[in-house]
Structures are given as C-alpha cells and as structure tokens.
C-alpha cells in the first residue's frame, strides 16, 4: 500500500472461490456429493461442513465457495503425482469408479501399484503427526478390487497418425504406450520375453502380485490400441534404424534392469550359485525351478526377500538371508521383512559372504564374516566394516545373489550416439527423457537404474509428454520443472481427533502360505477400507475429486481459477477488520474449556440458541443433549485480566450479551431455567441497557458478585462445580449443567499484521491508536478506522463509528464525489394503458429444487389454460444470466404487459426480475412472483402431488393478482442541499464543520449566546487526560468564520414542515422570526448534569458535583479525606438509566486529587464501577494508588450529616459487614445527566422522545443516528449521555447519514405508497393517528374543509391507514383491494 491521502494504490490478494458467482444458484447439489468433512468455523466447530460450502444460509454473496490450498504432501511425494487425497476420499465414500477415474488419470495400473508400490506417499502423510499414516496403497488396491479398471472410460485426444516403437513391456514401456494412446498416438511394444510385464511379470512373485491382476491391467493398455509383440528381443534383427524405416516416428527404450550384479567372491560361478532375478524369472515363467534344501540368499532388498519367500514356497527346508547391515537399514518393505520372518526365513544380519565353499564341484557352504557399522556413506547409510577373524561358515547347498540389478546393455552398446552413465544406465535429458539421438527416448530402470514401479510409470508419463511435444515441434522441456512450494498452510492437525488407529491389512495365516503362491495380503473389506480412508485428514481441504463439477448443473464450479492480485486505486481507506473472539483454550486448566463439552464460549452458545444453528435453536447440553436446568455465565474471561492474559481492557459488551443470552435461554427452555451470571460489576451503560438489566432481574436471572477462579468437573454426570467466595466471605460450591464463558474481544490477528505492514500505529492492546478529537482517524492520514479494531465497543457505537469514518473519508474526497459511480440506463417504457392483460408465465425448475418435486411441465400446461395467459414456459434456472436475456426477448416478441415468475422468494429475487422487465421496456411493477420453492417444494418435499397442486394454486393466485397490476412510477422528490444544525455544543459544531467542509451551506443555531455547549463549560480534560479547552476554542473560531456556515445565536426553533430533502423551518432569532429551507436537520441540543438536593448539595460548600471539585481543591487547604459518590440520581426512579460518564469522571478526578495531595485518603462510593473499554486502565491505576472503592446498594445508600462544617459520610461496607464513618473534607457527587430542554425541537420535527426525555432514534442498534422521520438526525447527549469523543463520532456519523440525502439532486421514493381519495375522505383524522411514520398530514381545502393528504416520501406502504379508514377512501399502490380480492378468490376457485 503506497500513496498519500486522496490517491492510494493498494495491492489486494484475492483467493479464488472456484465457483462462478454469476452462475451459482446455491442449490446445494454440489455440497451433497462433496466427500470432505471439515470443521465449521461459523458454527464454532459444533458442526461440520463440506469443502464446498456456503458460510451460512443467508450469506451474501449467497453462493458457494471451495476451500483449497496447494496440493497435499502425499500428491507431491508421489513420483507420478497421483491425486492421492482425491481417490482416498472417493474410497471413503465407496465411490470406487470415481476413485479409479482419478487414479487412472496418472496411472494405468491401480491394482498392480495397489499391491507393490513403495508408497512414498504414506511416509509424507501428515497423519504421522497424529498416530500412523493412512494406508494409501491398500486403499488404491481396494478401489481396483471393487471395480474393474478396464471399464473406466478414459478421455483421449483425437487419433494422430504418428507411431511410436516401445522397447520393453515393463511398467515404463506399457505406461508410455498408455499415455501416448491417450494423446491419440499409436504405439507398438516389442518385448524380448514370451510374456509382457517386465519386472511385474518376472521380478515380483505371484504371492505379491497375482497373474490375473497383471493380465487385467495390461488389458487396460491394450484396450487403448497398444500392440504388444512378445519374443522379439531388441538387437541385431530389431534396430533403431529398422524401426524408423518401418515408419515409427520415435523410439522409447525401456528395457529395464534385469541383469544381476556379481558377488565378486571366489566360487561364484559354481553350479549351485545363481542370480536372484534369474531365479524369480524361472519361477514366474516356468512356474518352478530347481531349489536346494538349505539356501543362502545374499542381499537385503525386495528382490532378496522375494527370492527367500519363493524358495520357502518351492520347498526349501532352511532359507537364510545374509545381509551386511542391520535390520533398520534393509531397503525391503518393513511389512515384507516381517512376512518373511513369519514364513520361517531367518535373516543373518551384519555379515557378508567371503567365499563359496564347494565339495567336489557342488556348493557345500558359504564362508561369511561379521560386520560392524562405521560412518554413514554416500547412500546415507552407515557403511559396514568387516571384523577381522570373525569368519564363520554356513552349510548350504544353494547360494542366490540378490545384491542389485543393472540394465543389460548388451543390445544397446552398438547404437551410435547413445550415452551411458557410470552406473550403466542410459543418459537422458533429466526433464524430457530424450536421449542425444533424435527421436529416441529412454526411461524406466534402464534409464534411472533399479527404482520403483511407480517411478517407471512416472518416466513413462513424462516421456509421452515429450514425444507429443517432439511431434508438435514444441520445446520439450519448457515449463515442466516443478516449482518448489514453500510455507503452505495445510489443514491444522489439531482439528483431527486422534485415537483411530490404522486398520490392519488381513493376511493369509503363515501356515497356509507354504507350498503355494496364493496372495498373502487379502485386501481390505469395504468397511475396513472406508474406515481407514476416513482417517485421511484432507490436508489441502478440497480433494479435487471433481464430483462437484459433475453435480453442478449450471456448470459454475471451476477448479482452475487462480488467485488474483489486484491493485486498487482509492482515495481513502477505512479499516473495519473487526475482532477475533478470545480463545479460552489458553486458560484450559482453569475453565476446562476444551476438556468438558458443557463448558462453551458465548459465541458457541449463540450458535446453540440460533434457529439456524447446529441444534436448530433447541437449547441442549453438548455432552448428552439433555435440556439444562442450571446455566452459569462467567464474566470477564479474557478481559480485565492482566495476569493470565494481557487484555487489561474491558470488552464493553460481555455483560450485556450475557444478560441477553440468559433471557433468551429462559425463553427457549421449557422448564424454569436457573441462570446465574458471575461478575465483578455488571456494566450496562448504553441506551436502554439499564432497563434491559432490570427487566432481566424480574425474569429471574441471578447476578452473583464473585469471580470464579477454577471450575471442577463431576466426570460421570458431566456437570460442573463452581467454587466461589461471596461478598461476605463465605465460600460456596454450586453445581451447574452448563457454563458459558463470556469471552472478550481481541483485535483480529490478520488485521494487526496488516496494520503493521501498512504502517498504522497500534496502542498497547493492538487496537488502532487514535486521538480523542479525531476518534476514527488513524496515525496515517487518509486511513480511517471504525468498529472493534479501533477499540472494544458494542454494535450501536460501531455503526456510529462506521458512519463517522465514511464521513471523514467523504470529506477528503468530496471534490471527486460521483466521479466513478455509474448509473444504469434502461430503454423507454412502453405505455400499456387500456390494453387487455397479456400475461407471460415463467415457471422455474431451480435445478432439482422445484423440478425435482413439483411437476413443472404439468404446471406450465395447466397455466396455458388460464384466461389472459398468452405465453407460458419453464426454465432450468430463471435467475441465471442467459435466461434473463431470453425473458427480455420473450416479453418483446409476445408483447406481454404482465409477467409472473413462479420460482423462489420475491424478497430475494423480485428486484432482479424487475430489472429484467425494465430491460424489456416494461414497467417493473407489472410483475408478480409465486413462491413455489421456499414455501412449497422445499417444505413439502415428501408430498410431490400436493406440492404440484399447491404450486398450481399459488401460480393461479399470482396470475389473478397480476391482472389488476398497474404501472407505477418512482416518485422523485427534489432535494435542496443546505443543512440545519440545532445546538452549538461540541457535537453541533463538529456536524456543522462536517457539512461545510464538504461544500454544503449550513445554518448552526444555538439557544444561548455562545458556542461550546456544556462540555466547554465543565469539561477540562478527557479521560485520557488531554486538555481540550484549546481544541474547543479552535472549533468555535473555525465555525464562526467558515464561509459555508451561518451561526445564529439566541435562536430557537418555532415550527417546521416538509419532509426529507424539502424542510422549511421557522426560527426565532432573538425576537425576529426567519424561515430557512434545508434538506436535512441535525439535532444536537446536548445534555447537562442535573442538580440534586441529596447529600447536602447546595447547603455545604464542600459538597460539589462533577468537575466543580477542582475549584474546591484550590479553595480549601485542609484536604486529607475526599469522598466521591456515584450514581446520585442515576439508576433510580427519577432517572432509571446509567449516565455512562460518571464512573470515569469520578475516578479521573480522584486521581487528580491523589496527584495533588498524595497522602490524602480517597473513597469512591459506587454501585458497580462502569469504566468500559480502555477506561479500565484508569480504574486499575486508581486501585493501585490506594483509592478505596466501596460498593453500596440502593437499599444501603450512604448518608451525609454536617459535623462542625464538614460533611460526615456514613456508609455500609458489605465486605467488612458493618457501617463505617468517614469525616470527609470534600465530597464530590456524580449526578444524573438529563437532556437539555428540547420540546420545541421535538414537536417541530415530530420526534418521539423516550421516558427519560432523550430523543428516540429509528433503531437503537442499527440506525442509532437516524430518526424515524427521514431527513432528521441526532447526535451528542440529546441521544444519550456519552463521553466527549463519542459525541464527536456521532456528530460525524450524523453528517454522513445526512449527506446520503444531501448529495443527490432528487430522491427516488418507492411507489408502493398509499393514495388518499380526497372526495371520499371526510377528514376524520383517524389515518393520521394510526400512521406510525407520520406520512399523512391534515390539509384544509377551501370548500371541502379538512382532508387527509399523503406525504409519499415518508410513506412505507404498510397499508394500516387503508384498514383504519371508515370511508375506505385510501387506495394502496401495488397492494390494492382488487389485487388482494382477486388473489383470495383465485386461491380457492379453479378458474
């Protein structure tokens, strides 16, 4: 991110959704087939979701997305790059066909590799970090056993005419033929031996790889047209040149490595000594070979083990394997070594043959020498060193050497231009596998030396790619290096529950193995396979199995989508990155959070309560699904806590949401649920919060003042024991069914990193550092912050900050307002007055959502029969782009003047179809929707005929209604853009400047004769201690000589009329009146501290209130005891609300006193300290400095008596359990705050006022700044008492909301409004009274008298007035009587 305010360029990284938003209709068919189950973070892990998911049912955008990271470690470890996670998931689902399709994309031999593969993938499997790796190889085999690989349809490119000659039919040769065939290139395989298969045939004995499996999978290759010629060895009568002459365009050498390596010991060429590979070849080709009684096998690899196990089967009595290193270094498979030991072979470790002893030409024994392991050699294994003099003899009659293989190059040596490596393998380009001879390629063991089968297949795949490029004349190695992938975040392992061990592969009992070559590993059953496959932890989340692609009818899924990095040119930035909820797992030893399922965070509890949550809103315990009888809430978990976590602040919302959750829980629970909230103080300081708190007490919520330190658990019932000390010192233990941890908020980790990266200063708690005079600005000009990232706050305050930030950003960019906004242009509207209704009906299938249940074609035919219907059709997805265009043409061609769409809900899709009507030149209100999905097929899915019948009825009702639909025009109302601000305090001035700086002429009126308001008079410092007197004076000067602001002092509002954008207000300036026209009004008449007659206030000079104590500090000098009393007149009958500022102000003053008089004793008498947010630091500082806090209750209010001139305070201290007497030198009261007298304003603008006199906003939470009458906004203390910086925030928010209106020339009003017929109206005024939006006013018309008149701009179209009118004189646009009656009649009758 660089640039400066007004012109930033930000680089944004967008992860792909893999689902096209414009096509996806969120029909959820893909989710049904997706095999991958993941933790559902939205449900806090209480339920699972699929890899393809919608975050929540009503998510916006309402389409699906796939969670996917880079390829899983198993796929990267596999030489052939198989999509391991993909086919393992398919095996888990029992979809073996699909599993094979995935495997055979990169491998022709699933069954073979399912048995003999070296499964490097299992070593890379991240399940090892949990318990054992997933048995991937055995799962591949299960897939091949369950479904015949030959029946898999493989995609291949169109046939080409080039031909390739392949030498050698081992895995490398055959797979090259397979991959070439799929590229449309024919090939012929020349095999020297009588049977195809190479090492698969002759190298691996049948007990590991049965013949039928080999035959079956070779057929997979031949079925693709690959021709195999056996008994045609490469050599003199089969040379490269001959092949080229025969028309082959390329040759692929894959002769493998069949030659054994000499032992290099005397006596090696005795008759009884032979090579392991030759031995296995004889067994494979001839079924048997001569075998000695006592056989010694030299070597430790797979070949040695195969020979040993074959020897046992052929009847050798004693077989011993001689290996020069120890067991750990043996290269053979672990499970093979174990199997051979089971079959009675003994392995002699750490010894090597020195000489083969003979007895008259026959092998009689072998002399070996003991070895010990020295330093590790180049192969990474410790090299064996013979121990001198440790020779020993083994009496054997046959010796088989299996110490390795190498390619038999005899047939290749005479080819000019073919290079060989020093290990005797063919030299090729490592990427393209091309030799130096044009058109000649090589692969498999012949090229790589003896390696794995899968390795050979991989070289085959690469060679095929090179050959195709060679034929196309394209550079063979371009773009084929595999880029290493670093720092990938795979799915975290801790999300996986351990403890499900690897399923043991069933084997033939050892006894039954002798004498036969039956397959030893019997393979998984389906159940075993599926349970083993479910151990896969889906490292890259989505397994790329492709099922969702097939399931998606509109074809919206696109796995090839790449991440996008975009540069955005913006004028300003607003950081609203929100919060991470505190994770109590860190404090697990105290709260047993992860340990006991009945301890949950408040967010999890919210999900349990939610109707769309895991339990559909049914309140049950997680351990046993029983309905709880007793629930406890523990407050301040992760907040106000500096020893266990460093969140010293109060998160401001936990008390309120705990009370709400308790109240709602009581509603959900049938029986009388006992809810207890364990707290230090209950902080309900916001507007209407205190009443909410009082009402919760009436509903029986218990508040226990105690901080529970640890929770114990009764393990068999799962209940929880809370031990706590009450105020009077008694220790109690209570048992609860559930405990909810009211977790606090922390700034989102990702946001903190981002902020550091773009250079935003953060404070000690990692919230954005901001000044009180500019609460939404950050340390970097042009970048603003709002919401919880600025500091812990509730939703109303967040919304105020969001609007304030919008205003601040708007301020910077006002010169470029409207520059980038595009207006959509529609064709001219057709006039249909007088036309007979010509109705077009479009019934939607919505994939299977409707079509799968209701008989859509039957509905369409039925509808064709109804009167006035001139066109009816059905579509797969009516809301998709292409169908919309089709509908526009259909409307034009059939000259329709009514449209009915039978599909989903008008709430979500009506605007979309109305746009379509506009595109077709038809008035958007000549449209109606029949909801046959959400309210029919989705909810009657098991009653198909009745759903169809109901759909017919619903469509018929829509058609009946549509006959009476009339075109309606959007009402446009002109807007004049000056603004009126009432009240010259901090809020008023900020608002006025906000308008003026954006170029809107503003009138600021002030009742008194000077600006500054109550804050100026009283407030010296903010709670953070910054002096604001200078700031206030600065604002006053700015306002008074700003050319866009006219300041009218000593001015009051007399009356006002008009509506949003068109207000006319009459003012009394001094004693002359003046009317002004303006588009918006901001009321900021502020509030003031009330005086009280309690506690000798006004009678004793030593008793002061709020900040007046500062004067007393100078006046009196005998200051050694000061008492602060909070909640004087607040939270009682006179003011049943919390004035929010007093706690902070009292502590601020107390600290000031302590500073000036360090040894003074200071008391604060309070009813719960409410220093919310970061103000908690002040409270902690006060306690540290020895200020004594005493809590009193309304019943034990302190009393003051005057004792020789000084106030003596008597208060009951609950902790000490008795009254104490304080001779105070000074007493300071925090009295309630009331709104300034505002009747004139509220009656002029018809603003409702709550019981406490504060003006009511449109919605206390979501529209805290707007009033119910549009165009009027409130800010500052007139809304509710609030500290200095929150007033500024709310003022800026009011400006932003008002600018929404002022910045336009005219305002469009929805035409769904009421129309009064003034001939029928008798002026009874009933409608005016019933209208809650004051959208009807009385108008006197001469000759007729008083009549009701609509203010359409304010009308919400609810129609209550139409019902109340005794004269039935009110006509509701779009919902009039004709339309509703028609629908009523149509619902029942057939016509």
């Amino acid at each position, binding site marked *: 991110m660089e640039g400066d305010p007004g012109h930033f360029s930000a680089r944004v990284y967008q992860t792909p959704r893999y689902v096209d938003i414009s096509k996806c209709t969120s029909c959820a068919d893909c989710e049904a087939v997706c095999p991958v189950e993941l933790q559902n973070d939205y449900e806090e892990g209480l339920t699972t979701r699929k890899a393809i998911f919608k975050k929540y049912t009503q998510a916006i955008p309402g389409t699906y997305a796939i969670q996917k990271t880079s390829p899983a470690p198993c796929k990267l470890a596999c030489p052939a790059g198989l999509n391991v996670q993909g086919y393992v998931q398919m095996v888990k689902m029992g979809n073996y066909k699909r599993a094979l399709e995935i495997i055979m994309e990169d491998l022709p031999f699933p069954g073979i590799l399912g048995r003999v593969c070296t499964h490097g993938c299992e070593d890379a499997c991240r399940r090892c970090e949990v318990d054992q790796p997933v048995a991937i190889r055995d799962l591949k085999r299960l897939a091949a056993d369950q479904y015949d690989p030959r029946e898999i349809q493989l995609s291949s490119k169109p046939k080409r005419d080039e031909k390739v000659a392949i030498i050698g039919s081992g895995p490398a040769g055959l797979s090259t033929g397979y991959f070439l065939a799929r590229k449309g290139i024919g090939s012929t395989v020349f095999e020297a031996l009588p049977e195809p298969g190479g090492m698969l045939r002759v190298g691996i004995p049948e007990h590991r790889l049965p013949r039928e499996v080999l035959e079956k999978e070779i057929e997979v290759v031949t079925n693709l047209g690959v021709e195999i010629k056996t008994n045609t060895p490469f050599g003199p009568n089969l040379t490269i040149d001959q092949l080229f002459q025969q028309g082959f365009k390329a040759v692929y050498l894959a002769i493998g490595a069949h030659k054994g390596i000499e032992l290099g010991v005397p006596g090696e060429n005795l008759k009884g000594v032979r090579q392991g590979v030759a031995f296995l070849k004889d067994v494979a080709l001839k079924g048997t070979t001569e075998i000695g009684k006592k056989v010694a096998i030299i070597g430790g690899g797979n070949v040695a083990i195969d020979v040993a196990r074959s020897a046992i089967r052929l009847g050798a009595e004693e077989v011993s394997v001689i290996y020069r290193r120890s067991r750990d270094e043996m290269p053979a498979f672990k499970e093979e070594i174990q199997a051979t030991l089971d079959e009675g072979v003994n392995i002699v470790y750490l010894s090597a043959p020195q000489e083969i002893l003979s007895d008259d030409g026959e092998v009689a024994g072998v002399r070996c020498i003991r070895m010990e392991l020295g330093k590790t050699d180049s192969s990474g294994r410790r090299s064996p060193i013979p121990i001198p003099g440790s020779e020993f003899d083994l009496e054997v009659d046959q010796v088989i050497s299996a110490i390795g293989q190498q390619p038999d190059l005899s047939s290749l040596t005479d080819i000019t231009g073919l290079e060989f490596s020093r290990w005797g393998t063919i030299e090729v380009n490592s990427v393209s596998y091309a030799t130096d001879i044009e058109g000649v390629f090589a692969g498999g063991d012949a090229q790589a030396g003896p390696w794995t089968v899968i390795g050979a297949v991989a070289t085959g795949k690469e060679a095929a790619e090179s050959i195709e490029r060679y034929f196309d004349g394209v550079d063979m190695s371009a773009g084929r290096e595999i880029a290493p992938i670093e720092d990938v975040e795979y799915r975290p392992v801790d999300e996986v529950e351990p403890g499900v061990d690897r399923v043991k592969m069933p084997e033939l009992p050892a006894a039954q193995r002798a004498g036969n070559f039956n397959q030893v590993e019997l393979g998984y059953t389906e159940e075993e396979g599926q349970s083993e496959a479910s151990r896969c932890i889906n490292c890259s989340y989505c397994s790329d199995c492709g099922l969702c692609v097939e399931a998606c009818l509109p074809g919206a899924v696109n796995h090839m989508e790449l991440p996008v990095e975009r540069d955005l040119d913006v004028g300003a930035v607003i950081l609203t990155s929100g919060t991470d909820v505190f994770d109590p797992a860190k404090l697990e030893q105290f709260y047993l959070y992860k340990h006991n399922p009945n301890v949950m965070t408040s967010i999890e509890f919210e999900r349990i309560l939610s109707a769309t949550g895991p339990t559909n809103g049914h309140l049950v315990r997680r351990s046993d699904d029983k309905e709880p009888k007793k629930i406890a809430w523990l407050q301040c978990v992760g907040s106000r806590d500096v020893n266990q976590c460093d969140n010293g602040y109060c998160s401001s919302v936990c008390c309120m949401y705990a009370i709400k959750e308790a109240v709602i829980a009581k509603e959900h629970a049938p029986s009388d649920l006992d809810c207890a909230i364990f707290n230090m103080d209950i902080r309900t300081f916001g507007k209407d919060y205190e009443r909410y708190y009082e009402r919760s007490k009436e509903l029986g919520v218990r508040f226990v003042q105690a901080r529970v330190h640890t929770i114990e658990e009764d393990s068999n019932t799962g209940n929880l024991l809370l031990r706590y000390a009450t105020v009077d010192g008694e220790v109690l233990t209570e048992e609860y069914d559930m405990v909810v941890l009211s977790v606090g908020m922390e700034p989102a980790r990702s946001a903190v990193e981002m902020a550091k990266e773009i250079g935003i200063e953060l404070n000690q708690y990692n919230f954005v550092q901001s000044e009180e005079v500019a609460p939404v600005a950050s340390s970097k000009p042009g970048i603003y912050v709002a919401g919880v990232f600025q500091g812990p706050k509730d939703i109303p305050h967040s919304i105020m900050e969001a609007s304030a930030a919008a205003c601040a950003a708007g301020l910077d960019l006002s010169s470029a307002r409207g520059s980038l906004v595009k207006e959509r242009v529609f064709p001219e509207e057709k006039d249909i007055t007088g036309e007979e209704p010509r109705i077009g009906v479009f019934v939607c299938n919505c994939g299977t959502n409707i079509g799968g249940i209701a008989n859509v074609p039957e509905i369409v035919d039925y509808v064709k029969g109804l009167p006035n219907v001139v066109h009816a059709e059905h579509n797969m997805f009516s809301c998709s782009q292409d169908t919309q265009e089709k509908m526009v043409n259909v409307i034009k061609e059939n000259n329709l003047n009514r449209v009915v769409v039978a599909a989903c809900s008008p709430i979500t899709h009506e605007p979309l179809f109305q746009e379509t009507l506009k595109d077709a030149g038809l008035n958007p209100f000549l449209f109606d929707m029949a909801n046959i999905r959400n309210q029919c097929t989705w909810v009657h899915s098991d009653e198909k005929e009745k759903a169809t019948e109901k759909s017919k009825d619903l469509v018929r009702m829509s058609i009946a209604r549509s006959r009476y639909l009339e075109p309606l025009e959007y009402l446009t109302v002109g807007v004049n853009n000056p603004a009126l601000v009432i009240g010259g305090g901090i809020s008023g001035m900020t608002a006025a400047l906000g308008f003026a700086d954006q170029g809107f002429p503003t009138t600021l009126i002030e009742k008194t004769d000077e600006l500054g308001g109550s804050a100026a008079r009283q407030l010296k410092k903010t709670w953070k201690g910054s002096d604001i007197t200078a700031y206030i004076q600065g604002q006053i000067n700015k306002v008074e000589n700003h050319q866009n602001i006219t300041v009218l002092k000593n001015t009051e509002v007399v009356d006002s009329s008009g509506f949003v954008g068109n207000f006319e207000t009459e003012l009394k300036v001094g004693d002359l009146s003046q009317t002004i026209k303006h588009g918006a009004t901001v009321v900021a008449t502020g509030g003031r501290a009330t005086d009280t007659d309690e506690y000798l206030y006004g009678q004793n000079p030593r008793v002061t209130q709020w900040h007046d104590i500062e004067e007393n500090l100078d006046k009196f000098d005998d200051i050694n005891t000061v008492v602060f009393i909070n909640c004087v007149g607040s939270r009682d009958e006179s003011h049943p609300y919390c004035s929010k500022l007093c706690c902070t102000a009292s502590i601020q003053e107390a600290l000031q006193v302590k500073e000036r008089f360090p040894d003074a004793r200071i008391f604060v008498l309070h009813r719960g300290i409410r220093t919310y947010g970061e103000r908690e630091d002040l409270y902690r500082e006060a306690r540290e400095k020895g200020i004594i806090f005493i809590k009193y209750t309304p019943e034990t209010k302190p009393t003051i008596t005057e004792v020789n001139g000084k106030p003596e305070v008597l208060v009951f201290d609950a902790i000490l359990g008795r009254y104490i007497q304080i001779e105070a030198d000074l007493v300071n009261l925090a009295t309630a705050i009331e709104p300034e007298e505002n009747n004139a304003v509220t009656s002029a603008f018809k603003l409702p006022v709550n019981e406490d006199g504060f003006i009511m906003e449109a919605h206390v939470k979501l529209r805290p700044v707007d009033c119910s009458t549009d165009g009027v906004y409130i800010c500052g203390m007139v809304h509710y008492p609030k500290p200095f910086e929150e007033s500024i925030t709310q003022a800026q928010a009011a400006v932003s909301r008002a600018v929404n209106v002022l910045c336009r020339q005219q305002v469009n009003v929805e035409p769904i409004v009421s*129309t009064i017929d*003034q*001939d029928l109206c008798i002026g009874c005024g*009933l409608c005016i*009274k019933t209208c809650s939006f004051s959208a009807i006013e009385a108008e006197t018309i001469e000759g007729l008298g008083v009549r009701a008149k609509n203010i359409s701009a304010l009308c919400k179209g609810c129609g209550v007035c139409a019902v109340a009118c*005794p004269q039935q004189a009110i006509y509701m646009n779009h919902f*009039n009587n004709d339309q509703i009656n028609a629908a009523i009649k149509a619902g029942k009758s057939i016509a």
Partner: protein
Amino acid sequence: MVARLLDLAGIERNRVQLRRVSAAEGALFANYVKEVSQITTELGPFDTSKYRLRLAAIKRALGTRRLRWLSGMEHRLSIEENVYGEKTNPELMQEVLDESIQSEYHKALILEMLELQPLSVREMAEISGLPVYTVSLRLNELENERKAEFHSHEGTTARFASLVASPMSEAKAADDSDYPLLKDSDHIKVQKAVSH
C-alpha cells in the same frame, strides 16, 4: 372484532388464527402451520353454503362506518388518555364494543334477508333464529336510519323491504356470480393519475 362476529354467526372462532413470527424463526413458522392445519382439520371442511346468509351479514356489518370507526379507534380509546387525562375503564369499553357489534350484525342480517324479498318480523325471526323481540328492535333502528321501510300488508302480517342496495346485490348487477368484496371506486384511479 372479527372473532366476536364469527361467534354471533355461529362459526367456530378458531377458523381465524393469528401468530407472531420473526424473520429468523423458521422452525417456529413451520410449527405454527402444523398447529393451524391441525386445528382446521379438526374443525372439518367449512361448508359456505350453510353460512352464506350470515357471512354476507358479517361482511355488511364490517363495511359499516360505525364498526370500521370502532376498529380503527379501539386501540386509542382503550389505551390512551383523553384530553382530561382520564382513561376509559376496560370493562365499559368492552361492553360498548360488544353491544355495537351485535347491533350492527343483527341489522346487517335483517337487510340481507330483506334483500331476497319483503318479509315480516316473524318470518325473519324464523329464518335467522333470532328472537322476535330482537328482530323488531333492530328493524325499528333500521327504519330510523331510513334503511328499511314498511312495504305491504298481507292479512294481519306487515312486510318490510330494504331501502339500501347491499354490496352483494351491487356486485350481482355488475358482473359475474362470485361476491366481490370491497369495490375500488373508479374515480380513485382517475384522481391518483392526476395528483402526481
């Protein structure tokens, strides 16, 4: 009010159900539908022909200015204070309401009966099942309101006729068979087009 009228007409009050559902309470809505369907099934099919006359009376009563005024004002009258700060006591309010509903219903019933043909008090009592005394009392009120008048004599029985065209008959004259309810007067449409 509708419930009271249904009681008077002898139609099960439960045939009209009200419920409160918020936008998030999907499950609750589904349960309410089950509940209402259950109630309706128990009530059995509603045979309109049996109640045609009395339903017409209800409709006519609901159309009267008096009942619409009362339904509009009911909330304000019973909850809010009047100018002098007094609140009407609820029982009195209920009494007034019941009495006016009943009287309007009876008058509507009579007018409906007279709609078919002129009838005598005794005949009307038989058809409607109302006591003779009530019929004559209401008929008297109708005469004062000049909605009904003496029609003719037959022997000693006097017959009366309605002077008011009921919305029902007006509908019959206007168009097809069914009963349109609240007819939008045409000139509203004209007036609307002009105003904006």
